């Protein structure tokens, strides 16, 4: 009985975080559409993830695959996976997603990401 309860608790936790993440992504994609984005393409998101400029890329710190744990290239700190399927907690809050997009797009690309680019990335991370 105890084990059953524990399993139920874990599953409930995962399901509710997953739901939050899906809601946060939908909410953001809605606002991106209101700001000029059209339909989102996962493949474009993937291409942006792997694109490199001035020796900088998303993979510099997140690692090659969003399903795996990355390592910050300077501090060495572990960076948890970004894919929704393995780590919904990462995408559970819209404000947090936006904060990191701002910081990391500026560092990696030297500019902010467009609403279209952000929506594409989210779509890719969601379906991985």
């Amino acid at each position, binding site marked *: 009985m105890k084990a059953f309860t524990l399993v139920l608790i874990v599953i*409930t936790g995962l399901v509710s975080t997953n739901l939050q993440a899906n809601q946060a992504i939908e909410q953001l994609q809605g606002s991106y559409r209101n700001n000029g984005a059209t339909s989102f393409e996962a493949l474009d998101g993937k291409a942006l993830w792997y694109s490199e400029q001035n020796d900088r890329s998303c993979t510099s710190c997140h690692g090659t695959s969003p399903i795996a744990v990355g390592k910050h290239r*300077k501090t060495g700190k572990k960076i948890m996976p970004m894919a929704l399927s393995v780590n919904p907690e990462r995408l559970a809050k819209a404000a947090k997603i936006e904060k990191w997009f701002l910081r990391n797009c500026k560092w990696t690309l030297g500019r902010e990401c467009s609403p279209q680019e952000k929506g594409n990335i989210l779509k890719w991370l969601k379906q991985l």
Partner: protein
Amino acid sequence: MKGLLKLLRWSTGITLLGCALFIGFYGLSASSIASGYKESHEEGEQRRNRFGFASETNPAYQEECGGCHLAYPPGLLPAQSWTVMMSGLDEHFEENAELPEDTRLEILNYLGKHAAQAGDKVLRGSKDEALTRITELPYFVRKHDEIPEQRVKNNPGIGSFSNCDSCHKNAVQGDFDEDRITIPGYGRWDD
């Protein structure tokens, strides 16, 4: 039959809700235990823990700054250093660490309140009041002069002197006790 189904649905709903609440409260209680420092003495209005650093923690500081590196005890730098640091977050040691203005101010306020004061041992010999690299404090340099630089920089388990918690496992609580140092790949440090 319909009644039974209704009852089943209702009880499943209640169970799920109960579980969600339990997880929430469990998380809250676990994190508050983890952040409860032992306090040894009070200094003015500022409460300090037994390591001489602020016992008050700040969730925004832990979340925003601790998200990328050790949330350094605020008492490692003077207030002016923190002001300079928090004014240039878009160029934060070659990283972008921008924050929304309200969060930035909250964290700056916390850091300023618990910053190192004149007379604190970490500021001994320090002339630059706006220095932002903790590792450049004369006190820091002195304390680490017996450690060969290569043992840190070429050590995959450390990489940089700025990763305090690679060796000082309880650094986040301000515990830099010499008796509790373990250098990755080398073992316990004996002074």
